[in-house]
């Protein structure tokens, strides 16, 4: 698989390590009343879809960026990639 790195262009997926569902960017509030249940969901439960999946890859043998890759888990087709930093900042701006 080639991952279309937003800054460096197409790169061999072997240069990356895999973390999992991009929902892991949305860490729950540890001080909230329902924090225990929210953290159980966050740490242990997954949507695990067959089809389009947004997921976190780390460009370890590269520029050490976290990248949010959109990929089809049935065909392995890669549909796009964004810097996780941009995704997180946009989410923060949207929430503010």
């Amino acid at each position, binding site marked *: *698989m080639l991952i279309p790195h937003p800054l460096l262009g197409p790169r*061999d*997926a*072997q240069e990356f*390590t*895999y*973390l*999992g*569902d991009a929902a892991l960017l949305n860490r729950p509030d540890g001080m909230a009343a329902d924090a225990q249940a929210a953290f*159980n*969901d966050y*740490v*242990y*439960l*997954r*949507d*695990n*879809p*067959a089809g389009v*999946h947004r*997921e976190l890859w780390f460009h370890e043998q590269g520029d050490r960026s976290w990248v949010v890759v959109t*990929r089809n*888990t*049935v*065909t*392995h087709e890669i549909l796009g990639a964004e810097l996780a930093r941009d995704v997180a900042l946009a989410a923060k701006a949207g929430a503010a």
Partner: protein
Amino acid sequence: MKFSGLRVFTEALRGHKGWKPLWRDPDPQPAYDYVIVGGGGHGLATAYYLATTFRKAKVAVLEKGWLGSGNIGRNTTIIRSNYLLPDNEPFYEFSMKLWEGLEQEFNFNAMVSQRGIVNLIHTDAQRDAYRRRGNAMLLAGADAELLDREQVRVMIPFLNFDNARFPIKGGLLQRRAGTARHDGVAWGYARGADMVGVDLIQNCEVTGFRIENGRVKGLETTRGHIGAGKVGVAVAGSTGRVMAGAGMRLPIESHVLQAFVSEGLKPTIPGVITFGAGHFYVSQSDKGGLVFGGDIDGYNSYAQRGNLPVVEDVAEGGMALMPMIGRARLLRIWGGIMDMSMDGSPIIDRTPVDGLYLNAGWCYGGFKATPASGYAFAHLLATDTPHDTARAYRLDRFQRGYVIDEKGVGAQPNLH
């Protein structure tokens, strides 16, 4: 139809015209007492033990493809009970004992061959860890022997003992471990279940659950609605997909694991050899093919095929361990979808929906568990209490903090 030597002899005289299909191909009835979703090893074993051991009831197995078309037909056939943790080892040893009596039990040749497994040791720390594991196995009634370097050399002299990075310093041997014919296991359980009246319904994909007031009433399938008293789901890599139909998010990710087989060779490898440090393991099938594999690819996948980097990684591991494997030509590569759980251990439990039960999270180790998984799941379905050896395999153990993490890597399924 019972198999026996006499029967084989008389059929030979009659031109083999008396053999019949091993099971019927029935249409689904409107309703069953128990419906098992998934006609793989675990689903068929569950139906078999449910119908033969626990209950006289109407039982059906629903399979979206053909029986045994998933991981029971895609694994590398290894059976063993060499786990460390007290929540795992008694269960896998129970499975090992069921393997030992399996062929007599269901009157079918599953080619169970206790040719032994050696886990190789490369460092003092690894020897300590394997000594501890061996002791844990002995405590659970299994067998284990710690081998030194020369004992390993006598048993498997063709390995590269002086690899610069991973010199072989010894091994942990379980003599009762070995291999079994994976398809034969599925066929044996299917035939046994069919003979006691279980309906094995193929080409019948579950598309949804009918749930009323928090209780499962039946299943929507591609062959119409099927009513059910209790539903047991045992669909391995498809667990997320099927259980989403019941509105459940699970502590499971689906990953692809590749396996490899070479051309048939003369007898070379006496048992199963695992090279954990180099992500490689190998055995030899009765047909002579070297059957080997390594790690999962590492990313979520439902594709039943992997990518070339892991092929290269496995080949490198093979070359590092036994350089002569470089002369063997590869015949086939394939992939299967693993239900990787958050702690690397399985789940056999009720779900929040009454009457809906889950058997999942087998990671890449489900084959060896087939008999015990089926037995324990049937026990749970029939009695609503977990089997003694499967008490720890609870769905809510993550929330309660009772994870069973053999490798100690945490909630990172692609590392288990």
